[in-house]
């Protein structure tokens, strides 16, 4: 039962990997968000680079397809002056017989300093982190860029950053997360982040087929009705609905889903007048969100992407300095 210790903090409590927001102390989260603030303004400068990761090799290890997350990690690492190597491994590598840990060992032999890992299996980054610990490679770090349904901590952090940017105090907010919570690592990360930051009312809104059992144990209030769930919310976070889940056993059709849970101006009227609308992207317009809302003045979906680079720069620089 050796995997029970929180594996992302080292003996002195510093962040050595970023695997999940669960169990991450509030001061560590605040430190990351504060560190991201100056990075957010770097993009407005003539010279966008800082030398914090000069000479470090960052490997983007993507076992699952991603464009946005991989690109923003790449930009973040490059702005920190790191050497960035992108590996899109997909499903084919396992069919060639190389295991996940073989891949990691090989890249360690190439003097990797930091792995940014995305994997379809929940817990894959934890496996890599515990393997590195067993190999006594405490100099090599892991940042989870999304594992199965489990966690997407940098997305959770950029969501927190966005919320803090527009709403200031987490302790006065009502936040609704709408959609496929069952399969969503984004939802799990944001829930852990918000509850750690003492947000008093975190809600999930979804049909029962898209909610995991005992989800309320994560500290959320469960709503099945959109109008009721959005009432007086400060923040509305829409989740992406994967196309393979739109028709079948979980939902009858994308159309019926939109009817009940698609965010329209009409439904958004239940939230506070200054409520912001977020989405981790990529959006399915007309499925989980109406274009008028996505492109409307309460949408902060594009700023989220920009903040994402700053937050990832903060995470990479903090971990590399520990």
């Amino acid at each position, binding site marked *: *039962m*050796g*995997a*029970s*210790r*929180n*594996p992302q903090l080292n003996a002195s409590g510093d962040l050595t990997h970023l*695997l999940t927001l*669960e169990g991450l102390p509030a001061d560590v989260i605040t430190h990351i968000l504060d560190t991201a603030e100056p990075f957010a303004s770097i993009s407005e400068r003539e010279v966008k680079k800082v030398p914090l990761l000069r000479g470090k090799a960052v490997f983007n290890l993507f076992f699952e397809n991603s464009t946005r997350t991989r690109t923003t990690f790449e930009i973040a690492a490059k702005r920190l002056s790191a050497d960035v190597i992108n590996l899109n491994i997909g499903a084919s590598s396992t069919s060639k017989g190389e*295991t*996940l*840990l073989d891949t990691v060992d090989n890249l360690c032999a190439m003097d990797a300093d930091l792995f940014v890992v995305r*994997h379809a*299996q*929940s*817990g*894959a980054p*934890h*496996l890599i982190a*515990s*393997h590195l610990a067993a190999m006594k490679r405490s100099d090599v770090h892991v940042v989870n860029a999304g*594992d*199965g*349904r*489990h*966690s997407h901590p940098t997305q959770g952090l950029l969501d927190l950053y966005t919320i803090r940017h527009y709403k200031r105090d987490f302790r006065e907010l009502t936040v609704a997360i709408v959609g496929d919570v069952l399969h969503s*690592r984004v939802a*799990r990360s944001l829930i852990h982040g918000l509850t750690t930051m003492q947000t008093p009312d975190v809600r999930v809104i979804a049909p029962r087929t898209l909610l*995991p*059992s*005992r*989800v309320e*144990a*994560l500290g959320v209030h469960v709503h099945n009705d959109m109008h009721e769930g959005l009432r007086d919310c400060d923040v509305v976070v829409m989740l992406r609905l994967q196309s393979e889940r739109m028709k079948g056993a979980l939902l009858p059709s994308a159309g019926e889903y939109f009817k009940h849970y698609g965010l329209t101006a009409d439904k958004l009227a239940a939230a506070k007048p200054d409520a912001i609308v977020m989405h981790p992207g990529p959006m399915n317009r007309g499925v989980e969100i109406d274009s008028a809302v996505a492109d409307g003045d309460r949408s902060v979906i594009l700023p989220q992407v920009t903040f994402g680079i700053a937050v990832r720069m903060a995470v990479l620089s903090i971990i590399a300095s520990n």
Partner: protein
Amino acid sequence: MRIEINGGRVIDPAQSLDRVASVYIADGVISSVGTAPSGWRAERVIDASQCIVAPGLVDLAARLREPGLEHKATLESELAAAAAGGVTSLACPPDTDPPLDEPGLVEMLKHRARVISKAHVYPIGALTLGLRGEALTEMSELAEAGCVAFSNADMPMPDTQMLFRALQYAGTFGHRVWLRPQDAHLARGGVAHDGEVATRLGLPAIPVSAETIALATIATLVRETGVPVHLCRLSSAEGVAMVREAKAEGLPLTADVSAHHLHLCDVDIGWFDPQAHLMPPLRGTRDRDALRAAVVDGTIDAICSDHAPVDDDGKQVPFGEAEPGATGLELLLPLTLKWATEMNVPLMRALATLTTAPAAIIGIEPPTFRTGSRADCCIFGATDHWTVSRASLCSQGKNTPFLGLDVPGRIYYTLLAGHVVHERADRATAARP
């Protein structure tokens, strides 16, 4: 060979015997307990002082991985593990490659086990061809080859009509049927108990209803056909309650639980520990407590090892991709003793769950110290502790969630039909209170 076991506390659940006495063994059978036979001259004397002398243990589920899965384990390695665990009789499930669905495979397995001669092996035949749940196997042929019961191992029977027919057919000829209650559809794709832990970790889940629906189906068919069924590996409090009720109604059902599930629950998955990936999944603490109590009150008849040696390649992958299972033969007695101590269960009763009860389920003579019985026995220090480590295990499967745990129950000697098949060199130096 005449062997004399001296000074041990002899506990024999088959005859409710519990006293310090010497055991005399000649020609592979028990000659007497207490008083030496006339003209007795021992060729070997075993000092069992401060030890328990018990009948050899009987395990209802030990995967030996032959034929076909020799990269995980072999008969040599796993029968050595059985001997090291004090297990002298074991039933092996049919989930080999190919499955035990034709007599030749069973005969070969029996033959190989006889040659190695470290434990009596009782194969469970496949209930359906290839365990696919589509067509019956030749049960009578398989029984003649040595199968003691029929099961679909961990493969569910999605077709209820097929299950009904299988029970009718097996019942016609008096063949025993063992079933693991798990609904094929509700369990599909799941790797962990449907509860808080799976929700937190984002692991595809198996609800308790996967077990209870299957139990309801089985109970209904047992009621209708009158064919007895042994239920393998109960995992939930609700499942236990249903079995308790069905037994009270008089349905001919027996049940077992894996020793792992008496101690662990889903929380032990921690941060995705693949060692805790078991089938059925580790459920909640409430379920674990119900299982522990159910063995005490007899709702669950027997404790088994659910021995499933898995190689490192099968475990050094993310939790969801990890092969379920753990090595168990050498931990069966320690984990049972740990349960018994924690639940204030007398040794006699604890040993019955490992000897007389499983023997009755397999349908073999219970191991005992009655004069003339086959001399299968084990000698252990019930309060001698040891630490589970890869090096301490004889099994080729070194993977278990108990690695690093301190457990009671050191087995010093195992005798199979009067032959010493396991002995520990450190017996003389072992520290005992």
